[in-house]
């Protein structure tokens, strides 16, 4: 027990150090440009905890990032560089919206699962396509997932601007989904969507699936050496495709949960590039599902904190972009990389 605690501590030490150095450098920067650096930093770090409503916003921000990032962990473990989280997210959100609007007569207990299923399937298919292209035709997945993002964004944009547009609302918004499918709040935290609880549970399940089932072992075998995966009798290509379906499904679920729990309708630009943020999060978390969950909390903290900081002081919120950039730098830096040489 003590030993595993120690090794856990050792494992996260570099990350903790990177965060500390980043925060310190950030403070130096803020001190250089702000009149009240202490206030600015307090807002950045702690305003999220000032009130229950701030905290709820923080939780809601973390949810989609965490879900997409955990999905991307599956993709990475299968050796696929999935840049398509954004498109999968949008399609998932749109599918949930469409199901909710068109089957609105169904009782909530039936409609809600259908909406979630719609989101999962739509996102999953959007992950499945580039995986099949990669496995069967060796199409580079970075290109295909990126391209599919544009398709998804433009397609959903068309739907929300034309057939689904709410004539009474200002802006590119769909009609509201029926209240029967709105997700409840986390008890004691009004407005914090239950979606976050789902993200936590799913992150834990993902860890178990990836590291404690033979399917997970096969996915990782395929992701690290597909010729080895074949030689030990596993269908490597199929595992890659399945893992990418899961990755897409996670992003699609994130979209569905956003619509059902937070937005209650499809909004044209509801995501501030969650897909890309989640990609960074997954990488910073060393492609580990639990790590991805924790890292997404940190990112949400910074994103929301920056807004509070900008309101309260003269520090622009884009400081956070700089800080996250620095963080990526420090986390990826390794003094001497371990080499695999015989």
């Amino acid at each position, binding site marked *: 027990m003590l030993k595993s605690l120690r090794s856990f501590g050792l494992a996260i030490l570099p990350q903790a150090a990177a965060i500390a150095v980043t925060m310190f450098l950030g403070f130096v920067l803020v001190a250089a440009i702000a009149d009240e650096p202490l206030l600015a930093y307090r807002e950045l770090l702690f305003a999220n905890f000032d009130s229950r409503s701030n905290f709820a916003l923080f939780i809601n921000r973390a949810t989609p990032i965490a879900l997409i990032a955990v999905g991307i962990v599956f993709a990475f473990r299968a050796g696929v560089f999935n840049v398509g989280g954004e498109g999968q997210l949008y399609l998932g959100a749109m599918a949930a919206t469409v199901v909710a609007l068109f089957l609105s007569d169904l009782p909530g207990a039936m409609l809600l699962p259908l909406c979630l299923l719609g989101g999962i399937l739509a996102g999953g298919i959007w992950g499945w396509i580039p995986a099949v292209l990669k496995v069967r035709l060796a199409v580079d997945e970075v290109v295909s997932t990126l391209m599919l993002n544009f398709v998804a964004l433009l397609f959903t944009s068309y739907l929300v601007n034309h057939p689904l547009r709410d004539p009474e609302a200002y802006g590119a918004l769909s009609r509201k989904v029926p209240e029967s499918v709105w997700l409840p709040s986390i008890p004691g935290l009004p407005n914090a969507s239950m979606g976050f609880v789902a993200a936590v549970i799913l992150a834990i399940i993902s860890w178990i699936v990836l590291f404690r089932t033979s399917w997970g072992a096969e996915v990782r075998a395929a992701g*690290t050496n597909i010729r080895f995966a*074949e030689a030990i009798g596993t269908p490597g290509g199929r595992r890659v495709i399945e893992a990418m379906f899961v990755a897409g499904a996670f992003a699609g679920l994130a979209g569905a949960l956003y619509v059902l729990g937070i937005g209650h309708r499809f909004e044209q630009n509801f995501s501030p590039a969650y897909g890309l943020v989640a990609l960074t999060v997954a990488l910073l978390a060393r492609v580990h599902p639990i790590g991805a969950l924790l890292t997404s909390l940190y990112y949400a903290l910074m994103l929301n904190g920056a807004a509070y900081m900008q309101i309260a002081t003269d520090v622009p919120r884009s400081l956070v972009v700089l800080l996250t950039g620095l963080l990526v730098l420090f986390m990826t830096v390794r003094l001497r990389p371990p080499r695999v040489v015989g």
Partner: protein
Amino acid sequence: MSLTAHSEPLASIVEEVRDTGARLPRTKPKPAGDAGGHILELLGISKSFLTTRALKRVDLQVLAGEVHVICGENGAGKSTLMNILNGIHRPDEGEILIKGQRVEVGSPLVASRHGIGMVHQHFTLVPSMSVAENLFLGRNPTRYGLFSDRDAMRRRSRQLIERYNFELDPDTPVNRLSVGQKQRVEILKALAFDAEILILDEPTAVLTPPEVDELLGVIDILRKRGRTIIFITHKLREVKAIADRVTIFRHGESVSTYRITEVSEADIAHDMVGRQVFLVGRQDDPESPRQFGEDLLRISGVTVTNSAGRRLLDQVSFNVRSGEVFGMAGVDGNGQTQLAEVVAGLMPVQAGRIHFMDSDVTAAPISERMKLGLGFIPEDRLDRGLSATMSIEENVAATNYVAAGMLKSGFIDVGVRNAFASDRIKEFDVRGATLGQPVGWLSGGNMQKIVIARELARKPRILVVSQPTRGLDIGAAEFIQEQILEAADNGAAVLLISSELTEVLSLADRIGVMYNGRLPQVLRRDEADEKTVGFLMNGGDASTP
């Protein structure tokens, strides 16, 4: 090694005439008159990884212009020391002197600036790039210091290739080259920037005997041109053939250095493993001739054609009986790789049938063949054998989850898995293996043991082994060969594919020789000797010699 031994002069060359059979003394006073002096000295080098002490105050002194061979068991620290010299690892203590000058080798680039070039144990080429691109990877000649000058690159590659008489085309992508050709590209890469000291880490492990002879020829040429060569090998024949001096490593220490004229192969073997080594073989006991059971593996008329229409396997037919070792000899590249993949179920056939016992498995995937009792040891451990970045226990477990009861209602029982892995590691004496670490951290030979330990664990009925002892030290090779024979004695049908002729001759009950994808003849072990088999390997016909 004791401290006093360190303070002695370290040339460690045996000068005196020894009593026959006596254990050689460890260190000797430095003899006078070694021409050239030390070009390279490694003094008191230590290196630890997380849990392993790979090197313990090792000394190595290399004379200018000599071929210095390093021998030692798997995991003795040979590659680690060379990686330190090449700037890949940093030593924990000790110093490196080049021409008497103390140097810090911080990176392979610094090493190449000091005139050190290295050929690694496992290939480091980029498969999709051409020979020329690989030769100049990361240091390609530029025009205006900005654009890479492809013409200059090609021209200089051609010059380099000509200088060493290697038959290579600078424009061929590396993934189309044979293993031997790849090896040459690696050597040229190390020589491309006029390395004075060339390190070759087990370059012959993957080569066929004629290729080995060629390589030894190249080394001799290099020596004549004044280069200094450090050469790692497990094959004692090569040591005797090429070395000026030999240093022997054991358990992270350099135990002795000899001038080659003063030691026998047996002495070297003895120093390496600390005991006598006997190479096993299939003993013919006239009292009780070996009994074979029914045919477990039947190959009939198997034909494989590549996309260009060339027949890689041409109407190959043979059977392997229970209890029998069928040895497949042949010069590499005559279809052995394809044969292994076809029997394992990793390559489809265009014609012919494959039977395991009574089941026709011609179209069955490898997973199904494994259920019928297939064990498969692929020829290249880092290609099909292992996933280098996955942990040791996961690599050992990979094909044994079901058979060894590691799954509890779909979930992996980590306790059972780790116990299973630990047992295998102990049984196969895998050195330096700590559970949880990536298998790629093991030494080359120890990785090989992991593959074999995994595949033999299921007690296969049909065992396909390619190049089982590639990269193993003699002690380990002996053990692995025993294991293969034991599998046969327990009733398995063993298909042993090896380019090591002596291995085939000593282990097999029947011997086939592949030539150009064909298997014209199968010899009984009493018909097969090196001459006949060698004749067949080059396309001869044994019935009309």
